[in-house]
């Protein structure tokens, strides 16, 4: 088996503000070349912290205490800032959650899309504009010229997210971090955006780490899943296995709490108290083990 494109190894982090409370508890996961890997969990699970750790933008109140983030054989956590920046611009890109705040409101789409192409790829302004035009066509924008000449506020949410996806794939990155990229969108637009990410990813052989709280969304786009709870991996496996035969009680509880229009009796099942108690015990036992081994 070839080495994964991204391997997170026993990543641990704490919150410095909150009495060194653990935020990530020895999280390990691997994303293969060309794989879409779903990182699923509820708020506080640590999914965004993992995404931020990869991108080198961990907030100052958090601290990575242990572990490695190995991308193409190099530990990103040990790179110098300038080396990390080179990798991030070229090989790792982000599709952010909120398309309305991720674009600079005072610059035209043209300028924002061509920055990376000129600075990282060394294209001329004219070449970069042509490339941006082609990228917008690739994300199925019908009149790329109008969009390139627009300011973000002149575009709908779905359109802005297409622009951000085009920008993320512009430099042909090896890894795309998609952080809840459809949370702010209507369901019909969400479906188009998912389709788009999947088709670009397949065409370019890109690996994607897809962060989401929505089991339905990850079911449709991810090859494999990692289920997180309070910074600890609860379950990992192929999407089909995890959803059809969840092994961890937490995954089962999440599925039972998820409302489904085809099963009106679901979605009203809060996590059973015994599952919550078992989860707390599992986390406490883990923390005690970590403290004991020091």
């Amino acid at each position, binding site marked *: 088996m070839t080495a994964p494109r991204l391997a997170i190894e026993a990543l641990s982090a704490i919150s410095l503000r909150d009495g060194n409370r653990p935020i990530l508890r020895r999280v390990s996961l691997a994303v293969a070349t060309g794989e879409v890997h779903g990182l699923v969990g509820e708020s506080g699970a640590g999914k965004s912290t993992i995404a931020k750790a990869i991108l080198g933008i961990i907030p100052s109140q958090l601290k990575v205490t242990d572990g490695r983030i190995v991308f193409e054989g190099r530990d990103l956590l040990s790179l110098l800032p300038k080396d990390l920046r080179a990798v991030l611009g070229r090989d790792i890109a982000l599709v952010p959650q909120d398309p309305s705040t991720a674009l600079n409101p005072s610059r035209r789409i043209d300028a924002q899309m061509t920055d990376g192409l000129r600075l990282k790829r060394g294209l001329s302004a004219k070449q970069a504009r042509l490339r941006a035009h082609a990228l917008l066509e690739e994300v199925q924008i019908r009149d790329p010229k109008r969009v390139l000449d627009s300011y973000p506020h002149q575009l709908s949410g779905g359109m802005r997210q297409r622009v951000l996806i085009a920008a993320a794939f512009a430099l042909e990155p090896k890894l795309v971090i998609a952080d809840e990229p459809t949370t702010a969108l209507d369901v019909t637009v969400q479906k188009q955006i998912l389709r788009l990410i*999947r088709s670009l990813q397949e065409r370019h052989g890109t690996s994607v780490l897809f962060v989401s709280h929505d089991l339905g969304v990850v079911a449709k786009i991810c090859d494999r899943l990692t289920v997180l709870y309070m910074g600890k991996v609860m379950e990992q496996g192929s*999407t089909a296995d995890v959803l059809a035969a969840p092994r961890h009680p937490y995954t089962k509880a999440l599925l039972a709490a998820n409302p489904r*229009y085809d099963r009106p*009796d679901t979605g009203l099942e809060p996590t059973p108290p015994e599952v919550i108690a078992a989860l707390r015990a599992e986390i406490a036992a883990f923390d005690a083990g970590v403290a004991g081994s020091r």
Partner: protein
Amino acid sequence: MADDLLLARGLVVAYGRPGSLFTRRGDSPVVLHGVDIRVGKSETVGIVGESGSGKTTLGRALLGLIKPAAGSVVFDGSDITALDERARRPLRRRMQMIFQDPMSSLNPRHTIGRILIEPILLHGLAKSHAAALALVHGILDRVGLSRGTVDFYSYELSGGQRQRVGIARAVVLRPDFVLADEIVSGLDVSTQAQVLRLLKELTGEMHLALAFISHDLSVVRSICQRVVVMREGRVVEEGPCERIFAAPAAAYTRMLIDAIPLPTTDPGWLSRGASVEVAASA
């Protein structure tokens, strides 16, 4: 129908002030184009649609928070469309609202106790502070919050707890009708399940009529008896949930349902539904 509680006919709502300094007369965008809707006594009705469908505007027009340009709203047999503030006051208790974001609908400078007690006294449901507090204790027990919650401020509570306070505040007044606008959209699924279950139980126990506005059809399916599908200020389709979800008559409803990702693997799902491209590529 005989047991209609709320009946709206031909509601038209346009935003903006026609003929103000910066807009020409007639420029104000029409958000509702003649909407009819009815909610029976102790019936739960979902109002679904995508952004811009007018679902929130419809809810506000039903409660009299916006004046429609045309159409009527009849509540329990009397026309309430043109009532002024004073005449509407007795209705306020009977028609309650639960908001999307409890953080911004609960006054951060008042304790939860004050937030819950004041409307009880205002509407004369209790004669003394002590009697009002007793009602508050009762409702806190019912929504699964400790009685000590009265001493907290909203920012000291979790999102799920705040939404329980929002529900408590609405139902403690013994209303006949409750409007809930996207009340679970910011919550984790496990918290969402608790809030939905609570609301479903309360509507049953208290014979509440509920209009449940949501963009999430699966949530509506789990809690509502009937559903109204809206698009661009018009009702596309309405009917019992069993029928609409099993066999939608309108192509738009079909498309909305097909766009919901179920938590099951289905390799063909992403590429299905070509009509989606046309409908939402604005």
